């Protein structure tokens, strides 16, 4: 049922969701599927039909985020038939190279079994509104939320909104209120909960009509390049053109259009150099000239930009019956497309809190745990990604970093989303214990990548890293990107995954050493087993820091070492 009339008296609902973007709509659908007896209303500024190519970003999803949309929300058939399957992330490094085929490439060559998608946000949000309405959601369209008055105690919150068409004002009351109004961050600002992160990056993006295919940047006579990813399917990847301090995304959309975005580090690429379409095109001519020539003459369907986009929060959920989901809560760096992962977790937490509240079982400690989970994830992911921006001009270091970040994502985060265990307190606590060593291990690894890049020139190179051809990653993916596991299985997996990451850290250290400090390799003759939490390219602290004092019994690294070393070619010393 669509409600276009304005309510002059406050209507009462169990839940009011303010904002009808991807986060708000998917939450509404999840709410109606989980708690069909609860009345849920969604208020949004935009009325249908939404434009198919919207100004919204977040078109690329991870496997975990896709699992949430397709399986948790029961939209599997819809995604398979309506949106484009994604051929993973693909990176082309070496922005300044004249021949595109000479750029080191990191990607895959066939569609994986576990899907992810490139989503047309306009189509998706139009369709989600219909699905949610069909499930019983009440939608108030074309109305701008003016105010949310949070109530004390058991009183209902009040939402005041204005109809854009005639300026009339409506009010409604709800037991729970959810801010899903994106970067407006209404509740965050009202309650003084915004929290800055070091905001090093800005972005601009636009859509071009028609198909923009990176394969067109390489002559067909370059058969080896074309055949290593057969049938021209690179188009279906979320493609990234990487250069010093920037990346450019190229994402195919089911509408037939293509999304293109520039994301860059301020210090290297001032925002003012690409904050209009004309400037962005000039910027592309300067930094990605081949690509700029390819798209020259096409008119953009839209253009948007965002200065210093990432932010965090002090609190996103409250036992006083409010929640902030999607961009209304935190905004992480988009390089690995994590936005939908955050939506999956935030929406599931919100649904669980509301469910428990109506059962009179809402525990403030549980709400705090949910809060800490989202905030910690954001505050870990964004810096870990953004330290990589100065490294984008180092293809080998970035390949190692993306491999590490991918392995960690599949090993530790994805299984939680695939099995929704984060809403189960006891299992979550056990999982936390199982992977408690990860946080400082990945800090060590990120420092290793920085030091590795700083020790240029390197001896190492590659043409194509096909990451699903690496048995280690393939196994990690197969074991962890699957639902239906028991708590015991997940905990056992997490313990095993931490062991794999401990091994992987040592192997990447040995590759970095061989690349930049081969004269020290003899100190690490096989069998090697180190304290992975103390790896460093500073040879002066190895002994003192305890690098040679492992914290776990030795395991054989030779197979993994062979797999990872085999990705690269090493020039003679």
């Amino acid at each position, binding site marked *: 049922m669509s409600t276009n009339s304005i309510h002059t008296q406050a209507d009462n609902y169990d839940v009011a969701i303010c904002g009808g973007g991807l986060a708000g709509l998917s939450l509404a659908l999840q709410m109606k599927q989980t708690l069909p007896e609860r009345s849920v209303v969604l208020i949004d500024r935009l009325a249908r039909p939404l434009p198919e190519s919207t100004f919204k970003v977040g078109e690329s999803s991870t496997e975990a985020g896709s699992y949430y949309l397709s399986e948790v929300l029961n939209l599997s058939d819809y995604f398979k038939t309506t949106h484009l399957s994604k051929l993973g992330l693909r990176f082309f490094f070496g922005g300044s190279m004249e021949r595109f085929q000479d750029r080191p490439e990191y990607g895959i060559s066939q569609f994986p079994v576990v899907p992810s998608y490139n989503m047309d946000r306009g189509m998706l949000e139009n369709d989600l509104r219909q699905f949610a309405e069909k499930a019983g959601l009440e939608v108030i369209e074309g109305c701008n939320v003016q105010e949310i008055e949070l109530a004390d105690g058991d009183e209902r919150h009040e939402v005041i909104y204005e109809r854009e068409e005639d300026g009339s004002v409506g009010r409604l009351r709800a037991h729970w209120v959810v801010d899903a109004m994106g970067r407006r961050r209404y509740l965050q600002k009202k309650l003084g909960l915004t*929290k*800055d*992160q*070091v905001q*090093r990056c800005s972005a601009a993006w636009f859509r071009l009509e028609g198909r923009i295919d990176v394969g067109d940047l390489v002559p067909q006579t370059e058969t080896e390049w074309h055949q290593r990813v057969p049938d021209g399917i690179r188009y279906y990847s979320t493609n990234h053109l990487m250069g010093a301090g920037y990346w450019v995304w190229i994402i195919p959309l089911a509408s037939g259009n293509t999304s293109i975005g520039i994301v860059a580090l301020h210090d290297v690429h001032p925002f003012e150099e690409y904050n209009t379409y004309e400037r962005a095109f000039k910027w592309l001519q300067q930094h990605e000239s081949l690509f700029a020539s390819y798209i020259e003459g096409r008119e953009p369907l839209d253009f948007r930009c965002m200065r210093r986009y990432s932010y965090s929060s*002090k609190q996103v959920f409250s036992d006083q019956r409010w929640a902030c989901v999607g961009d209304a809560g935190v905004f992480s760096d988009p390089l690995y497309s994590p936005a939908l992962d955050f939506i999956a977790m935030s929406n599931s937490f919100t649904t669980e809190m509301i469910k428990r509240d109506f059962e009179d079982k809402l525990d403030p400690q549980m709400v705090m745990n949910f809060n*800490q*989970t989202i*905030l*910690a*994830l954001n*505050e*870990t992911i964004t*810096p*870990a990604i*953004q*330290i990589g921006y*100065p490294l984008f001009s180092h293809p080998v270091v970035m390949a190692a970093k993306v491999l590490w970040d991918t392995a960690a994502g599949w090993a530790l985060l994805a299984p939680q989303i695939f099995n929704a265990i984060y809403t189960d307190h006891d299992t979550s606590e056990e999982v*936390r*214990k199982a*992977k*408690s*060593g*990860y*946080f*400082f*291990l990945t*800090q060590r690894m*990120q*420092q290793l990548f*920085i030091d590795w890049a700083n020790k240029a020139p390197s001896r190492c190179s590659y043409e194509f890293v096909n990451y699903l051809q690496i048995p280690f990653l393939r196994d990690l993916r197969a074991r962890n990107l699957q639902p239906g596991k028991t708590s015991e299985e997940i905990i056992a997996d997490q313990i095993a995954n931490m062991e794999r990451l401990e091994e992987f850290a040592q192997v990447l250290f040995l590759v970095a050493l061989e690349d930049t400090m081969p004269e020290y390799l003899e100190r690490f003759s096989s069998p090697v087993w180190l304290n992975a*939490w103390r790896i460093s390219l500073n040879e002066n602290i190895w002994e003192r820091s305890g690098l040679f004092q492992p914290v776990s019994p030795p395991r054989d690294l030779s197979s993994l070492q062979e797999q990872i070393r085999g990705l690269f070619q090493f020039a003679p010393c």
Partner: protein
Amino acid sequence: MTVREIVMKQLAEVVELHSLIPFSDDITDDTRLDEFMLDSIAFTALMSQIEEQIGSLTPRETGGMTYPQTIGELVAMYTDVKRETL
């Protein structure tokens, strides 16, 4: 309270709450934070609690080290932040 006292008090509380490793009295500036086996949730909670007391946000400087590795570095980071805000 000095910055050091605030950091140590909050660290002791977070370790007590989130870690199986005891917070002993003989820790020094060189004691490594990874010895407490704190995960990202615990470490984020620690930083939030310190920031509530010191009254300013911690810039996550990313040009070099991503997070402090030792207790001395953690104290120094917040000492620097406090100095900048005075």
